[in-house]
C-alpha cells in the first residue's frame, strides 16, 4: 500500500470538498486512520471500493468508540471501518467518522449499500452505542432485546441495580451493594404471614 499521506491526497483530489484528516496510530500498530467528515464518507468509501488503485472489496470490521467530553472539548462517537482488498491482497485502510453523542444527532451514513457485510456490524454498533446509520436497510437491535432502550457500551450507561452481595465490595461496588441491600421488598409469602 501507498503511504497514508499519498492516499489522503488522492482521496481529497478525487472527492471534491471532502475533509480528510490523518489520525496517527502507535508505531507498533502502524495503522494510521483517515478521519472523514460525515457528508463525504460515503463517497470516499465508494472511491476506495471502486477505484482500480485500491479495490477495497471487503469491509472486515465496523465498530464505534465513545469519547466523553473532556476539558471543554465536546465528546463524540467515532465509527471505525476497516477496509481490505482481497483482489489486490492489501489493506487495511481505516476509515473513521465522528458524530455528536446526542442521540438525535448521532447519525452517520450507512456503508451497507457498498459492503453487504456491514449490515450486522452496523446493527451491533447501533444496538450498543446508539449510532443511527442513515440508509441502513434494517436498522434494529441485534444483541439486546427489542424493548431495551439503553445503549450499554456508552461510557455514561448505568446498569440496572440488580446487584447482590460479593465477598469484598469496594468503591462503586460497595455503593451498589448497599443499594441492593436496602431495597429488598418483602415477598408475597412474607406479606401473607404478617
Amino acid at each position: 500500500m501507498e503511504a497514508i499521506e499519498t492516499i489522503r491526497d488522492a482521496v481529497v483530489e478525487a472527492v471534491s470538498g471532502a475533509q480528510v484528516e490523518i489520525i496517527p496510530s502507535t508505531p507498533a500498530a502502524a495503522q494510521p486512520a483517515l478521519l472523514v467528515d460525515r457528508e463525504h464518507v460515503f463517497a470516499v468509501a465508494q472511491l476506495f471500493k471502486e477505484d482500480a488503485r485500491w479495490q477495497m472489496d471487503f469491509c472486515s470490521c465496523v465498530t464505534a468508540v465513545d469519547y466523553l467530553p473532556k476539558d471543554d472539548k465536546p465528546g463524540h462517537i467515532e465509527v471505525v471501518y476497516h477496509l481490505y482488498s482481497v483482489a489486490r491482497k492489501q489493506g487495511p485502510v481505516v476509515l473513521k467518522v465522528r458524530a455528536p453523542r446526542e442521540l438525535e444527532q448521532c447519525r452517520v451514513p450507512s456503508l451497507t449499500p457498498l459492503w453487504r457485510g456491514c449490515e450486522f456490524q452496523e446493527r451491533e454498533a447501533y444496538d450498543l452505542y446508539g449510532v443511527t446509520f442513515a440508509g441502513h436497510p434494517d436498522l434494529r437491535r441485534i444483541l439486546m432485546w427489542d424493548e431495551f432502550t439503553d445503549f450499554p457500551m456508552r461510557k455514561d450507561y448505568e446498569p440496572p441495580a440488580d446487584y447482590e452481595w460479593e465477598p469484598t465490595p469496594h468503591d462503586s461496588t460497595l455503593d451498589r451493594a448497599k443499594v441492593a441491600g436496602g431495597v429488598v421488598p418483602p415477598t408475597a409469602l412474607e406479606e401473607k404471614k404478617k
Partner: protein
Amino acid sequence: MAVDEGLKNEMQKHGVFILPFEQLYNWSRKSSIWPLQFGLACCAIEMIASAASRYDLARFGAEVFRATPRQADLMIVAGTVTKKMAPQVVRLFNQMPEPKYVISMGACAISGGPFKDGYNVLKGVDRFIPVDVHIPGCPPRPEALIHAIMTLQQKIAGQHLEADVRPRWYHRDGPAEYPIPAFGEHDLEPAVNREVWQPPRNYTDVTNEGIYKKA
C-alpha cells in the same frame, strides 16, 4: 419398618426384597434420570463429554438426553444465562413434567461468573427457578457433573411422598409454574423472582468501612 432386619437379610439371600413403596419409587426414579438436551455455553461441551464414551454418564442411568422438555426430568443449566435467554430457560423449565430437578452447572449459571458485572448476563439462574445442585467450576470437569448427578440421586432417594417435608409437587398448593420474566426497558421485569431467591440480607448490610455488621 415392622419387618425384622435379620429376616429381611435372610429373605434377600433368597431373592425376596421387602422395602417401603417410597424407597422402590425413589430408586426407580433416581436410576433413570432423563436430562433435557440443551446447552448455553462452554459448560455444555463438558456436559457432552460426560455423556460420551470416555466419562459415560450412562453408568448412572442419566444418558438419555431428551430434546424436548416434555420428556425430561432434569434440567442441566450448562453455561451463561443471558438476560435475553432467561425467559426461554424458565419457559422450558415450566414445560417439564414434575417431578423435575435443576442442576446449575458452572460459575455463570450459579452467579453470572466472570460476567457478573455485565449488563447482559443473569446473575445466577436460581433467581428464577429452584436449583437442586450447584456445581462450581469454570467449566466444571465431567467428573464434577457426574458427582452432581450422584448428589441429586442421593437427594431423590431421600425424598418423601407423604411427610410434611415432601417436595413441592406433592403439595396441593405448591407452585407448579414459575413466572416468566418479561423484557423491560432496562432489565428483565421482574429482575428476580423473590419467591425463589432472596439476596443474602445479613451480608448486604455493610458498613462504610466495608466490614460486615454481625446480624
